[in-house]
């Protein structure tokens, strides 16, 4: 449900600015690179909210979802940017609550957070509705043809990762590893 406004029809002039670079990376769906790039030139573009939006959107698709916090707190100039900030905040909150649920057994109750189309939100809502099956410490949730498997992995240095494996029609497609 991303409101894709009319993407700029202006000829993308090959002048290099950070904004155009990060935008190009996002357009090419090179999210990892985009997230790194965003981090690299963050301080230089700290007041450019469009740049920050792309930075956030890129990191959203990677495992470095915690980096959303940095651009999130800086977005606020317009109504759309504020909504984007709330969108980021909601996703981060959902990730945290899910982690608590998985590690501490903290119940999600009947929480009703804003709906987003991001996979984490979808999974969160399924958890709230208790539409999961627990088998061998793995939470299995379904949403049409898509199956999610959510579990906790402990790394050697006692760090806990929340793993989300996504299966499309029983075929493994993507893994998110959040710390």
């Amino acid at each position, binding site marked *: *449900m991303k409101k894709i406004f009319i993407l700029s029809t202006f000829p993308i002039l090959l002048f290099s600015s950070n904004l155009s670079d990060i935008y190009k990376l996002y357009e090419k769906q090179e999210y990892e690179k985009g997230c790194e790039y965003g981090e690299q030139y963050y301080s230089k573009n700290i007041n450019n909210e469009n740049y920050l939006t792309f930075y956030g959107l890129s990191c959203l698709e990677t495992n470095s979802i915690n980096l959303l916090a940095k651009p999130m707190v800086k977005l606020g100039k317009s109504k759309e940017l504020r909504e984007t900030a709330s969108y980021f905040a909601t996703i981060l909150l959902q990730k945290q609550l899910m982690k608590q649920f998985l590690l501490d057994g903290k119940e999600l109750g009947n929480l009703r957070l804003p709906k987003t189309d991001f996979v984490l939100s979808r999974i969160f809502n399924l958890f709230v509705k208790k539409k999961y099956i627990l088998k061998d410490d793995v939470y299995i949730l379904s949403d049409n043809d898509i199956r999610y498997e959510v579990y906790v992995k402990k790394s050697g240095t006692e760090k806990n990762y929340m793993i989300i494996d996504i299966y499309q029609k029983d075929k493994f497609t993507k893994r998110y590893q959040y710390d």
Partner: protein
Amino acid sequence: MINTVELEKRWLRYKTKIFRSLFFILFFVISIPYLSYYLFQQYTLLIEKDKNISKIEVQNERLTVKDELAPKVEKKIVKEVSVLDVNDVVLAPSIPIIDFNKEKMIDEEIEAKNRKDEQSRAERQRAYHQKVAKRKALAKKRALKKKSKNKRKLVKAKSSSALSSNELKVVNGNDVKHYAKEDIKKINFHSSTNNYMEIMRRKFEQDKNPREAILIAKAYYKAGNYVESEKWALSANELDKDSKESWFLFAKSKAKLGKRREAINILVPYYKKSKLAEAKELINDIKSGSL
């Protein structure tokens, strides 16, 4: 004769009957609009829901269990397909429109501004340096003037053939304190060394960097723990054969442990290969025992 008692009773009955029917009529008259309004609202809500709700499906889903011996579990999951409640709050990010022309202009402006700032800063720096130089020159001049002034004031000292005891000492070189080798105190590194070691060791375990092994070996060597330093130098060398430090440390540690022959046997082929002057020097040092 008319039976008024009975008539009165009948009249009361009649009155209650009238009131009851009146009450019911009023009740219905008042409640019907409310009821119809309520029903109308429910109806409109229902219509809204119907528009958004897709079919609710019941599906069979098999859960494949990793353990082959366990039976396959069939479970029925009731799924709702994209249900959107009327009261849901929805958030969606907005991908910004980028006006590249505008951005270019803004960037050029910023760049121009930066250049200007740079220029002005460079100018300021230059001015400052010039100032400093001027001041230095001035100070020098003044100092020279003073010296020449002082020089004129200087009185020639009487030449004496006899040297004071101190002067004698200086001449003889007795003023320098000589420490016997035994007097050299061994600086106790234990407490700090342990911490450092722990950290370094952990770090090494994590990334197996030969550089860290070298540092550990060096630390041990410095502390006089030649057994450990040899061990760590060897580890470092195993990870990086080209590391000269590992070679030297290894040989040095061996030499310190008294295994001079071994040390030389290790260094010679290394010198032949690497042609490092340092290696030759070390060999000579070990040979001469001046390590």
